């Protein structure tokens, strides 16, 4: 009796029986084997095997030749329910098979029968008795190994095989594999369990080739093992492919481990499962080190390594990515093994299968602390330079104001002192003194004039108005501010209505207005998230003038009504003069400068400019 142990045996026997059953069942439908297309015979055999294994009927198409119509497609239905008592060819002692079949099969008749069924399907099989003596082996197998049954069974030591002795087939096994293979076979034979093992077999050609062996016991009715049957497959190509795969996987892993970046992976639900070596070295621990009971690993991990000021942002963005599958990129501070926080740039992307389902999140973390510090230093140096420039122009301005005011003041002082002298003597010269007092009044008036003139300078411009192309002007402004825009990662969206007529302006002053408002907006958005720093500049004709709107996406103005007044500033550094000067200039061009807040967030500055004469057509 044959015991189908495990899937392999089931399939093997199934296929074997299918092949046999085929001959039996096919008779009523199919008159001759030649009538079935050779390419479809295997499909039918496999359908039989599947039906046997699964217990479910299998239907396949095959081609059959009919004398009148040639090849035609037919359906074949393989039924699972047929007798398990299969009649096999009787064992015949064919004279020319002597060397394949032992003279005495002993109890191994069933095992040899099974081996021959397997041989039908797989082309190669063998059987041996309960002590390990071979009673059958496919002639082909013996030829390719250059060993006969006698060679297999030749005792190499006094002890029996089961007691640790070796038989001749040892010579056909790679020395490095033999001990493992023979020990496993002894174990299986003692316990009556199936043997599945891979080892290298010495071919007659002198090369060792990997084989996978599957050996099953055949039992008597009382369950006693009467013999063993099995087969071996050449798995050399598979092993070599497998080894190559292992090697490529190993080298990929090595790449991950040694790549000069901090790499980690998370499950689709966001559970970190892998830290690369650099990541472990940076953090000083491995992926599970911060696990806490009842807390998701990601949370305990982020809490341990992300700077408290960045934690909310990181959580928010990670959450967004995990929910939507969108890639994640963020610059934040991360705690190193030594407790210091370093600026890192973290990027995370979903790895998807063919169906588009996320199978893993892969992340890279780059330590950019040194770059950030260098950038900061550069920015500070630039700020200092800008402040110095501002201070220098302020000094110039105040020097010229001082000079202007000083002239009448000097005259007043000298006059007053001369007057004192005219009045001091025994005979005061009242007439001269009176004349001087008149001049003092005139000088004081002229000082007052100068002061109001300076005021007017801030309010009104007397610069020449020239016909100017607004697009070109805005382009110059964008070039001027290219550096701060790039540095702050702020985008500027310029939308000028097509065919705008030229404007009549003092180009230098209006350029100053644009620069001031845009610079102000860039600074206002410094605290906004990096991707959201957007500026929009729009220009269109409105009621005979050109209306300009400049809107940012910053926090908006705390007090829009007073934002344009001189010396009003919410900035820590700054004179609060920028927007006030803008207003003076814009008003000098005949229109107000307005500031208001917009939804959902941001500030908007609006002003109008006069259209140049002849530019309106």
């Amino acid at each position: 009796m044959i015991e189908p142990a495990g899937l392999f045996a089931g399939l093997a026997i199934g296929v074997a029986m299918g092949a046999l059953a085929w001959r039996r069942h096919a008779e009523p439908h199919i008159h001759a084997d030649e009538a079935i297309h050779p390419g479809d015979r295997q499909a039918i055999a496999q359908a039989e095997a599947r039906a046997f294994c699964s217990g479910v009927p299998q239907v396949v198409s095959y081609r059959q030749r009919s004398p009148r119509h040639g090849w035609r497609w037919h359906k074949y239905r393989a039924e699972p329910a047929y007798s398990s008592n299969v009649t096999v060819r009787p064992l015949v002692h064919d004279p020319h098979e002597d060397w394949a079949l032992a003279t005495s099969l002993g109890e191994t008749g069933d095992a040899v029968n099974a081996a021959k069924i397997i041989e039908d399907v797989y082309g190669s099989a063998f059987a041996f008795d309960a002590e390990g003596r071979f009673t059958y082996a496919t002639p082909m197998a013996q030829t390719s190994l250059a060993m006969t049954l006698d060679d297999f069974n030749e005792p190499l030591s006094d002890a029996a095989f089961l007691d640790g002795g070796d038989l001749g087939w040892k010579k056909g096994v790679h020395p490095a594999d033999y001990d493992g293979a023979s020990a496993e076979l002894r174990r299986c034979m003692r316990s009556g369990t199936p043997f599945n093992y891979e080892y290298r077999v010495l071919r007659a050609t002198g090369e060792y080739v990997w084989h996978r062996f599957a050996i099953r016991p055949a039992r008597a009715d009382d369950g006693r093992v009467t013999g063993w049957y099995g087969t071996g497959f050449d798995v050399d190509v598979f092993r070599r492919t497998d080894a190559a795969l292992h090697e490529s996987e190993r080298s990929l892993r090595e790449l991950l481990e040694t790549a000069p970046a901090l790499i980690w992976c998370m499950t689709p639900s966001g559970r970190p499962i892998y830290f690369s070596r650099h990541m472990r070295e940076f953090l000083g621990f491995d992926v599970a080190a911060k696990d806490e009971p009842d807390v998701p690993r990601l949370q305990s991990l982020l809490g341990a390594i992300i700077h408290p000021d960045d934690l909310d942002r990181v959580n928010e963005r990670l959450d967004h990515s995990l929910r939507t599958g969108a890639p994640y990129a963020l610059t934040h501070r991360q705690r190193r093994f030594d407790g210091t926080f370093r600026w890192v740039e973290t990027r995370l992307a979903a790895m998807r299968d063919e169906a588009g389902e996320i199978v893993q999140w892969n992340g890279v973390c780059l330590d950019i602390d040194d770059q950030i510090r260098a950038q900061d230093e550069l920015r500070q140096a630039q700020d200092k330079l800008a402040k110095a420039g501002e201070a220098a122009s302020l000094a110039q301005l105040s020097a010229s104001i001082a000079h202007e005011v000083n002239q009448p003041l000097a005259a007043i002082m000298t006059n007053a002192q001369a007057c004192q002298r005219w009045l001091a003597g025994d005979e005061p010269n009242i007439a001269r003194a009176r004349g001087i007092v008149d001049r003092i009044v005139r000088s004081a008036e002229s000082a007052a004039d100068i002061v109001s003139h300076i005021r007017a300078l801030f309010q009104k411009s007397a610069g020449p108005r020239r016909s100017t192309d607004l697009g070109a002007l805005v382009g110059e402004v964008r070039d001027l501010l290219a550096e701060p825009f790039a540095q702050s990662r702020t985008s500027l969206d310029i939308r000028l209505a097509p065919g705008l007529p030229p404007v009549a302006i003092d180009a230098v002053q209006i350029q100053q207005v644009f620069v001031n408002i845009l610079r102000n907006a860039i600074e206002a958005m410094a605290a906004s998230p990096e991707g959201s720093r957007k500026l929009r500049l729009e220009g269109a004709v409105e009621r005979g003038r050109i209306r300009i709107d400049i809107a940012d996406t910053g926090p908006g103005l705390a007090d829009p009504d007073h934002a344009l007044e001189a010396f009003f500033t919410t900035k820590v550094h700054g004179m609060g003069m920028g927007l006030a000067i803008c207003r003076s200039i814009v008003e000098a061009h005949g229109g107000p400068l307005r500031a208001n807040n917009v939804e959902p967030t941001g500030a908007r500055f609006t002003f109008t400019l006069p259209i140049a004469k002849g530019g309106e057509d």
Partner: protein
Amino acid sequence: MSHMPTVAIVDDDEAVREALGDLLMVSGLACECFEGAAEFLAARRVRQFDCLVTDIRMPGMSGIDLIERLRDERAGLPVIVLSSVLDEATRSHALAIGARAWLTKPVTDEHLLGALAQAIASSGSSSKR
């Protein structure tokens, strides 16, 4: 003949010129005012001055140019600068090229008259030699 010292005043601001003229007059000095360096140089060809009080920042020829010109001509005329300019570099340059004193506007009469007296005294002693 007892010579009454004559002071030349160069300043583009009329109010300042008038005030200085009056102060010098009441202090017993003769003076002549010019609204620019060019006018003063023209007058100097026909008249003699004992001292020059000049502003620095003026349209046309500046006070510094004027002092340099006088130095180049080896005029020997003592020069007092009276200006609102606070620039230290300009001040030291003016003193280096021969200005006797640098006074900042507004100036007290004591300072100005003291500087004038010194300048005229030195000028007188040098002319005697």
